[in-house]
C-alpha cells in the first residue's frame, strides 16, 4: 500500500524497452544471419555441377512445380510476418527512446545524478593536475567572496550552490573518504534517498481497472501460459530424436523385433511398413493405410493418382524423414537386409523407379521401358555397360527416337556420380598401425566418376595423391578436413516434390555374423568436378598415354568407428557399404580388414 | 523343431519372390 506508482511515466518506458530489446536483438541477429548464410548456400550450389539440377527443373511435372510453389509461398508468408514484427518492434523502440529523451520527469531525475566531470567541465580521463587547475579556475569564478556585487539574491544563491557542488566534485575525485562514498553510492555525501515503486501507472491498479488487471493476469498465468507450454511439451514428446513420430518409431521397432529371417525383404514390405506411419495419419486423417500404400506405389511406378495427386506428393515428401528413421532403427537392430532395402526404397521413391535389375537404366528420363526390356539382344543392366555402345545404338536400346531427347538423356546419364574406391584403411590418428584397444576410424579415398569414363585401376593413382595432411589439427580432429570438400549439388529427381541434394549412407557390417555394427554415417560433401572431364571409354584408346592422375580430384570419406579396436592381435574383417540415397548404381560394397598389431 | 519346419516350408515362397525380383 505504501508503494509509489508511476505517475510521471518515469519507469514503464524503460521496462517496455527492456522487454522489446530482449526479443528483438536475438531475432534480428538470427534473421540477418539467415540472410547471409542463405546466400552462401546458394553460392555453394552454383559452384558444383548444376546440369542435373537444371534438367530436373525442366522435366518436373506441372503438379510438382505447383506443389513447390505452394510450399514456398507458405514459408515466405511466415518470413514476411517475422520481418514485419522486427520492423514494428524497432519502430516502437525508436519511439520509446525519443519519448524518454523528451520526458521532463525522467530528465529531472537524471540531472540528480552526480557527475563530477561535467561539474568541473573536464573530460573523464583528465589527470590530477588538470583536475586541480580546473577546480582552481572555477572556484575563482564561483567563490562567494569573489562574486560581483551587482548580482541579484537568486543569482547569488545559484552561484553559491554551484560553488558547493564544484567543491564536492573536486573532493570526490581527490579526497579519499569522499571518493569512496562517490564510488559506492554515486554521490560524495553518502547514500542518497532511494525510492522503490511499481512501473505501472496508478490508474491501472486503482478501482475498476484493477479487476481487469487481475483477470488479465489470471488469464495469462492460468490459461494462456499453460496452454502454450503444454502444446510445446506434447509436440516435443511426440517426436523422436530423428524427427519421426514416436508411434511410427514404435511401429517400426515392433516390425523389426518380430522380423522372421525367412521373410524376403522387398520394396513392397518397406512400403507397407511406411504406410502405417503416424505422420501420414496426421497429415491426411480422412485417408486410410491402404490408400497410403497405394499412393506410395503410384509414386514408385510413376502413376498419376488423379484427385489424390497432391496428397501423394505430400506423402512422398514426408517419406524421406520416415525412411531415415527406419534406417536408424534397423541399424540399431543390426538388420542389414532391412537397412539396405530402406535406402533402396528411398532411391525408388526419389527416382520414381521400382527396384529391379534394370533400375539403373529405367531411372533415366525418356526411356521406353518396353523396348528396353524386350528389345536388344544383349542384356544390358548397367550405365557402365550402356556407354560401351555409340550414341545411336544407345538410342535404340533405350527406345528413344528423338535426338534432342537422346542427348538430354545422355547428359544426365553421364552426370550421375559413381564412386570408385582408390584406397581404404583403418586409421588411428598419429599411429602407423591399429593397436589393441585404440580408436580407429575408416578412411576411404574415392574417385567420383561418370559411367562414361574409361575404367582405370586404383594403382594408377599414385600414393602421394592419397595422402592426408599430417599436421596437428588433423591429428586432433581427423574429420575436419572433410568439411573442405564442397556440398553435393542438386539431384536429378523430376518426380520428387522438393529440390534435394541427398547424401551417401555408410554402413559397417561385421563379417563374422553378417550384422550391422553401428548407425549409418551420412556423407553430404564430395567434389563432383571429375564428372565434367571428357574421358569417354569409347574414345580413349591408350590408357597409359591419355591418363593423367593429377587432373582427377580425389574425394575423402571418413567413417567413425563406434567401438574400440579388439584387445587381441589379429585380422578382423568388416564389410563397408556406401549407398547413395538418390541414384541406382553409384554404390560401394567391399570388405576391409582391420589388422590389429602391437 | 517347429521353427525349423517353418523355415523349411518358407523355401518355396522365397523361391517365388526371388524369381519375380530377378
Amino acid at each position, binding site marked *: 500500500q505504501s508503494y509509489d506508482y508511476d505517475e510521471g511515466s518515469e519507469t514503464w518506458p524503460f521496462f517496455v524497452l527492456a522487454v522489446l530489446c530482449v526479443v528483438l536483438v536475438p531475432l534480428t541477429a538470427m534473421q540477418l544471419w539467415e540472410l547471409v548464410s542463405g546466400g552462401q548456400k546458394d553460392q555453394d550450389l552454383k559452384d558444383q555441377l548444376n546440369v542435373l539440377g537444371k534438367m530436373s527443373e525442366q522435366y518436373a511435372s506441372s503438379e510438382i512445380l505447383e506443389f513447390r510453389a505452394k510450399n514456398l509461398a507458405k514459408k515466405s508468408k511466415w518470413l514476411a510476418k517475422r520481418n514485419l514484427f522486427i520492423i514494428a518492434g524497432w519502430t516502437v523502440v525508436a519511439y520509446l527512446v525519443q519519448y524518454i529523451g523528451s520526458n521532463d520527469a525522467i530528465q529531472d531525475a537524471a540531472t540528480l545524478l552526480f557527475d563530477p566531470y561535467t561539474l568541473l567541465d573536464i573530460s573523464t580521463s583528465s589527470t590530477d593536475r588538470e583536475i586541480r587547475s580546473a577546480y582552481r579556475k572555477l572556484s575563482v569564478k564561483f567563490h562567494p567572496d569573489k562574486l560581483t556585487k551587482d548580482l541579484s539574491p537568486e543569482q547569488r544563491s545559484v552561484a553559491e550552490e554551484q560553488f558547493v557542488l564544484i567543491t564536492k566534485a573536486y573532493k570526490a575525485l581527490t579526497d579519499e573518504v569522499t571518493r569512496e562514498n562517490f564510488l559506492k553510492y554515486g554521490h560524495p555525501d553518502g547514500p542518497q534517498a532511494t525510492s522503490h515503486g511499481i512501473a505501472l501507472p496508478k490508474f491501472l491498479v486503482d478501482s475498476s481497472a484493477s479487476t481487469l488487471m487481475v483477470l488479465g493476469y489470471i488469464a495469462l498465468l492460468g490459461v494462456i501460459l499453460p496452454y502454450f507450454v503444454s502444446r510445446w511439451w506434447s509436440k516435443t514428446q511426440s517426436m523422436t530424436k530423428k524427427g519421426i513420430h514416436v508411434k511410427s518409431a514404435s511401429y517400426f521397432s515392433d516390425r523389426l523385433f518380430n522380423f522372421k529371417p525367412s521373410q524376403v525383404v522387398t520394396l513392397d514390405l518397406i512400403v507397407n511398413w511406411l504406410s502405417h506411419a503416424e505422420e501420414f495419419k496426421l497429415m491426411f486423417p480422412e485417408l486410410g493405410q491402404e490408400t497410403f500404400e497405394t499412393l506410395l506405389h503410384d509414386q514408385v511406378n510413376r502413376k498419376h493418382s488423379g484427385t489424390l495427386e497432391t496428397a501423394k506428393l505430400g506423402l512422398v515428401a514426408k517419406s524421406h524423414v520416415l525412411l531415415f528413421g527406419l534406417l536408424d532403427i534397423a541399424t540399431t537392430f543390426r538388420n542389414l537386409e532391412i537397412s539396405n532395402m530402406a535406402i533402396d526404397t528411398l532411391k525408388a521413391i526419389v527416382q520414381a523407379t521400382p527396384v529391379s535389375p534394370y533400375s539403373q537404366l529405367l531411372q533415366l528420363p525418356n526411356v521406353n521401358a518396353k523396348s528396353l526390356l524386350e528389345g536388344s539382344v544383349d542384356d544390358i543392366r548397367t550405365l557402365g*555397360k550402356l556407354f560401351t555402345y555409340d550414341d545411336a545404338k544407345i538410342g535404340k536400346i533405350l527406345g528413344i527416337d528423338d535426338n534432342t531427347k537422346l542427348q538430354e538423356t545422355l547428359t544426365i546419364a553421364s552426370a550421375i556420380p559413381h564412386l570408385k574406391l582408390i584406397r581404404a584403411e583403418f586409421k588411428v590418428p598419429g599411429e602407423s598401425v591399429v593397436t589393441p584397444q585404440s580408436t580407429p576410424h575408416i578412411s576411404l579415398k574415392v574417385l567420383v566418376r561418370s559411367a562414361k569414363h574409361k575404367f582405370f585401376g586404383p594403382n594408377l593413382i599414385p600414393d602421394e595423391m592419397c595422402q592426408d595432411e599430417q599436421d596437428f589439427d588433423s591429428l586432433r580432429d581427423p574429420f575436419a578436413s572433410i568439411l573442405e570438400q564442397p556440398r553435393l549439388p542438386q539431384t536429378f529427381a523430376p518426380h520428387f516434390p522438393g529440390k534435394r541434394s541427398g547424401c551417401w549412407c555408410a554402413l559397417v557390417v561385421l563379417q*563374422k555374423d553378417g550384422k550391422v555394427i553401428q548407425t549409418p554415417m551420412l556423407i553430404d560433401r564430395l567434389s563432383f568436378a571429375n564428372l565434367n572431364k571428357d574421358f569417354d571409354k569409347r574414345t580413349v584408346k591408350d590408357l597409359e598415354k591419355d591418363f593423367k592422375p593429377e587432373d582427377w580430384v580425389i574425394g575423402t570419406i571418413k567413417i567413425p568407428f563406434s567401438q574400440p579396436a579388439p584387445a587381441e592381435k589379429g585380422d578382423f574383417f568388416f564389410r563397408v557399404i556406401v549407398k547413395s540415397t538418390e541414384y541406382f548404381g553409384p554404390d560401394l560394397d567391399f*570388405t576391409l580388414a582391420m589388422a590389429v598389431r602391437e | 523343431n517347429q521353427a525349423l519346419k517353418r523355415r*523349411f516350408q518358407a523355401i518355396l515362397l522365397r523361391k517365388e519372390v*526371388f524369381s519375380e525380383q530377378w
Partner: protein
Amino acid sequence: TLQYDSNSKLLDVPDASEDVEMNVKQINKLTQDLVAESNPNFTPQPREDSTAMIKKLFENGLKQLQQQKMADALKSVNLAVEMAQRKRAPWEAFAVQLQELQFMMKNRVDLCLVQGKFMDALQDLDFLQNTGLTTSDVFIRKTDALMKLKQYDQARAEVERGLSLDPTNAKLRVLHMENTRRLAEYNG
C-alpha cells in the same frame, strides 16, 4: 476368447493377433501328434522306423546318382527330405533332426547345381546358412549359384564373407577373381 472342440481336440481363438494364432497352431499341432502317437512311452530318441525309412529313400537317391540318373536322384532325395519333415515328431531331439536335414540338403544342393536348378540350390543354401551352417563349402556353392543367376554384386558379398572366415581357401579365391572379371564386364 479360447474355444475348444472336444471332438477334434483342437483349440481355436477367433480374431487373434498373428502371434497368438501361431501359438495356437503350434499347440494344436503338438496335440494332434500326441494323440496320433501309438507308443505310450515315447522319448526324445528318434524313432527307429522313421530313421530307417528316411535312410532308405536317401540311399536310393545316392545309388541313382552313381548311375548318373540325376533327375531321379533328385526326386528320391526330395522324397527323403519330405519324409523327414513329415514323419518326425516335434519332441524328437532337435540336434538329430537338424543334422539329418542339413546332411540331406547339402546333397540336394549339389544335385540341383549339377542340373542347372540354380534358384532351388540358392534357397537350400540360404536355409543352410540361416540354420547355422557357415562352412566354406556353403559359401563356395552359394557364390557359384549367384554368379550363374547373374547376381554378381551379391556373389561378391558372399565370396568376400567366405574369404573373411577362411582367408586361405583357394577355391574361394578363384571364385572371387572370376566374379570380379564378370562384374567388370557387367559394368562395361
